[in-house]
């Protein structure tokens, strides 16, 4: 009877022998060491980008992207490294353009271009540009590092240019195209953008309409647990002191699932924070939703447009809840959204009032293309760093 440790040794030896023999069989040209561990499997949809791209690393992003018909380009997760020796910190889980709602001014049509399950366009060299790497099979995603202009200009130490990793793909929505783009900046910001372009709708070439980019963002600051959603509002004036102003930090919708609206006079921002993850000032790490708005869209068609009547929604992260139209149902129970796994839903709408630059009528045909109109928002770190990022 073999003792327990001898048995373990024997079994382990057979495992190592098996792996070594297999590696030899598949790679006859190489002479691997039988004690060398096989390389770590890296997901085929993983992109890791260190910044700056042309010097010693300061920060880095690890991104898992995905594609599908309907939703186009989505994120499965993104992790940020604020310094070379730090561990990856998760920032987001699943992120997607959950819906693209396009109602026309005359009341009809009213398109839901994500629900309609369109495919992605194949990308070509012109679209990828000189620095873009084409990903996917079929090739439909572009990955590139862009200069983002000045990151800062300091009175003492001068300025610095910033960079960002960008992933984009284009949804083929019949006559229209939606460029879905995620950017990962060297300072920890994630940019969410959707650009509307293509041909104006046949027979309604000159009719105004809206493009409501409606996002689902599973914010996971240092992981999915212990995340809370706060609203930050600038208030002015305050009381009788007409020159005074203040900032209010309060739980989103009283700390329960629901909605809030963007107020231009309050500079409404959301802040998703993890109370367990703190920086050197003992401040909780957070990522803020920074609106970049053309306006607030409100649509009053059938009942399923209720989801468009507010600018921000927050839910718990529950399996199967990825459809923007269903938001009123998702929040019906008003579950807590403090210290839990949360999802933020953001409306980013653009108004398309057609212009001659969109194209021209030639007989019964419409020829030309609408230039890209971008909508979106940023997710910006707050108290994630201990000091100014990328500063000397």
């Amino acid at each position: 009877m073999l003792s327990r440790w001898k048995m373990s040794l024997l079994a382990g030896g057979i495992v190592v022998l098996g792996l070594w023999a297999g590696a030899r069989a598949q790679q006859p040209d190489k002479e691997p060491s039988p004690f060398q561990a096989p390389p770590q499997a890296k997901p085929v949809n993983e992109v890791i980008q260190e910044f700056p791209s042309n010097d010693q690393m300061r920060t880095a992003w690890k991104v898992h992207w995905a594609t599908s018909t309907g939703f186009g380009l989505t994120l499965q997760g993104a992790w940020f490294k604020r310094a070379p020796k730090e561990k990856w910190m998760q920032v987001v889980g699943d992120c997607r353009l959950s819906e693209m709602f396009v109602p026309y001014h005359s009341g009809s049509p009213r398109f839901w271009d994500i629900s309609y399950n369109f495919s992605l366009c194949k990308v070509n060299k012109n679209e990828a540009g000189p620095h873009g790497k084409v990903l996917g099979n079929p090739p439909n995603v572009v990955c590139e590092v862009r200069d983002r202009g000045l990151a800062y200009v300091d009175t003492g130490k001068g300025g610095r240019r910033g960079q960002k990793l960008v992933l984009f793909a284009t949804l083929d929505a019949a006559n229209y195209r939606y460029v879905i783009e995620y950017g990962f900046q060297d300072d920890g910001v994630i940019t969410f953008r959707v650009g509307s372009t293509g041909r104006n709708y046949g027979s309604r070439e000159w009719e105004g309409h809206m493009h409501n980019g409606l996002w689902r963002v599973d914010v996971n600051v240092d992981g999915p647990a212990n995340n809370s959603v706060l609203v930050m509002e600038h208030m002015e004036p305050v009381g009788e002191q007409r020159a005074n102003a203040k900032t209010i930090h309060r739980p989103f919708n009283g700390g329960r699932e629901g909605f809030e609206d963007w107020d231009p006079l309050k500079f409404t921002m959301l802040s998703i924070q993890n109370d367990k993850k703190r920086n050197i000032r003992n401040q909780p790490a957070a990522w803020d939703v920074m609106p970049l708005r053309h306006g607030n869209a409100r649509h009053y068609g059938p009942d399923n447009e209720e989801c468009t009547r507010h600018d921000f929604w927050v839910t718990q992260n529950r399996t199967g809840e990825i459809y923007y139209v269903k938001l009123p149902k998702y929040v019906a129970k008003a579950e807590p959204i403090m210290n839990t796994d949360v999802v933020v839903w953001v409306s980013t709408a653009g108004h398309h009032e057609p212009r001659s630059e969109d194209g021209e009528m030639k007989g019964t045909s419409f020829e030309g293309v609408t230039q890209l109109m971008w909508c979106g928002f940023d997710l910006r770190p707050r108290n994630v760093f201990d000091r100014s990022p990328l500063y000397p």
Partner: protein
Amino acid sequence: MDPIVRIPILGLALAALLSGGCTSADRDERQPNFVLSADEIRLAKTLAGQALGIEPNAQSRPGHVVFVKVDLLPAADSERLVMVHHYRYEGDQTIFTMVDLRAKEVLSQEVEMHYPTALAPEEVERALTLARADERVLPVLQIGTVTMEVRPIQFSKAGDSLFGHRVAHVLLNRDGNYLAAPVVYVDLTSETVILQN
């Protein structure tokens, strides 16, 4: 050693010997995790269909229920969850069935009325067939090179004659440019072609 522990370890050892090990080529060739295989889609469709009482090999017919699509849901790495979409003509209903592909079970089923829903491939084909056969559309197709694209369109006003119907807008594209007229709708519920000039 506990026999329950011993068997998997020895099994792993034998599997490693037989498989030829894990190489980078194996990893490069595998499908990304966001791609649903044909088998997974088939399984999802079957399980959701069974929950709806649809026979596995039944031909979908307008007036009944059509399988529309399967969405892969965000989930932990150990899970494989999908949402199956069916459309029922009667009542203009979209049926969402959440399926756990690993456990091979239906987790939930919900019905939405007048919900924006993609067209099934067979509905797209039917719309094209009806449009091509329409004597008012035929002359348009005979000038230049005309291609047809289909997108769903919903009529949302309760008083509209097409409210609650399954309607496809057939876009006509001649020599690379969309035609402003005629506007061709195919009402799949009544199987009629409607032209607007």
